[in-house]
């Protein structure tokens, strides 16, 4: 499974209830597509959301969102980047 990132933007701040309602719509489609939600980030003004999934390809996530009628900005596959450990300066 690869890492997938979904970007969403909203005109009005989104509430937790709305986020949960959206998740309830998308979840059955994601499950059918063998995709798993990992975590979501929401901006402080609650107008931007980034969701992370594990899926076989990005299209599975797009299809789940489309099928559930949930809007998104873009979906892309990603690699996890880990910084080198900072070198001790003492």
């Amino acid at each position: 499974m690869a890492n997938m990132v979904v970007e969403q933007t909203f005109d009005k701040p989104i509430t937790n209830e709305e986020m949960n309602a959206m998740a309830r719509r998308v979840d059955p489609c994601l499950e059918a597509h063998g995709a798993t939600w990992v975590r979501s980030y929401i901006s402080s003004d609650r107008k931007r959301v980034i969701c992370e999934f594990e899926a076989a390809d990005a299209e599975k996530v797009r299809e789940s969102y489309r099928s559930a009628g949930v809007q998104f900005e873009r979906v892309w596959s990603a690699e996890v980047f880990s910084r080198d450990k900072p070198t001790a300066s003492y």
Partner: protein
Amino acid sequence: VKESGGNPLFALELARAQSTGSLTQVIASRLAQLDGRARDLVSWAAAIGHQFDAETLGRATEMPSGEMLTALEKLERLAIIRVAESRFYDFAHDLVRDVAYQTISGPRRLLVHRQIARALQSMHDPDSVFAGDIVRHASLAGDNALAVPAAVAAGQRCLRMFAYADATNVARLALQLADTLPPTERFERQTQLFEIIVTARTPIAERLKFSPRIAELIDAARNNGQARSAALGAHLLAALHADAGDLVGAEQQTIRSAEIARSADPRAAAYAMANTARCLLFIERDIPRAQSLLAEVEAIIGAVGGDHIEIALGLGYLHAHRGEYESAVAHLGRALEMAAREQDHWREWCAAARLVTLALETRNLDAAKRWCERLQPVAAKMTGGSEGVRTELLASIARFALDGKPRDLRARLQDVREIDSKSDLAWALTFIAELELERGETETARRDAEEALAAADTVGRPSEAALARVILSTLTGKRLITKADPNLSERAIRCFTEWKETRHGQHGRRANV
């Protein structure tokens, strides 16, 4: 003053008519003094009820609007009616309305109420706002054929507004009226009314009291050859049992799955099942389940009526999967039109895209070009997704299939790699490899088939994986197909069968028929 209800005008009238001793008589005599149009209008308005508007009054009385407005102005001036709110009038006093109503003779009352019910029915009312009033007037007119369907609409409106007790009351009243309807209509209406009662979230004990009557309806409908009403009745009974926690009883009542049994709305359940089936077909997983779900959907829809994009789309994909091309095109075409009508761009795109791939798979290249043209404006309407890139790839493949010139084909394939749509990549590369194999371009065919196989395996596309393996087996002479998969498409099975028959035939294999 007490008798006048605090209305100074009537208090004055009463004082003037002390000898009569009755305000009712005073009002009756005042109304009798009105001229023809105004007196007539007062009767109609009283029959409509406490509040009435000029449009309903005009439609019911069929009075020319000029004359009606003059009469209304006069009644307003005489303080018999007053403007209540926005476009509504009301009687200045309930007593006036009561007296005016009493002056209408019994037989005429029936005609007046029927006329009002018909006037309301003829008005544009998409939300069934007038349905309750139609029920009242039609039942007062003894016109049950008009009252019962209006009660169904009123009950359904109550359900939409979560007014469950009101929904049950109106359905219960209409069930009595429905007894007088001719058999065919009676069964259909009674079923709709029971559906309202079962769906309303009133206490289950209350709803269960209707079980014997629903069971009687099922038997009567079946005996009268009304299979549709009998089927829906069985669904309702099952739903009641399921709501009561009696799933065994639910199963005994119907052959429907527990999923259906828990739903009081078989159409909604059928659409949900169609959605699941369509999803399975899109991802080419658990196809036998998708097939049985769609068979059940067709049975339910056959019994209770209705249609949905998901049903047409699911059936289109299923028939395409089975290699039944003509019916696949018909279902997909239906899905396309429904989705276009409902502005469901994604499903419109999905239907059109499958029509393109189907046309390419059957080498109907003119049709492929035509469907690509239909696909492009739909993709242009969609933002954020992959549809634009995938559309361009399909158009490029269609051109390549027509004249064998690759043009921008590799660039479009790279675009699809970048958006990470492996199912599309697997289908595209398999199809391109088939064309290349036919043209003797074995090296590119091998490369494309290998990439197609990897992509198909990653996302679990058994048919594309099998087709890629057939191409690679043809090229290498080695048997790369290992086991049969119940999810394989007819196209993949046919290609594999042909490969077996012409084994070692190498480049002579026909990729498609």
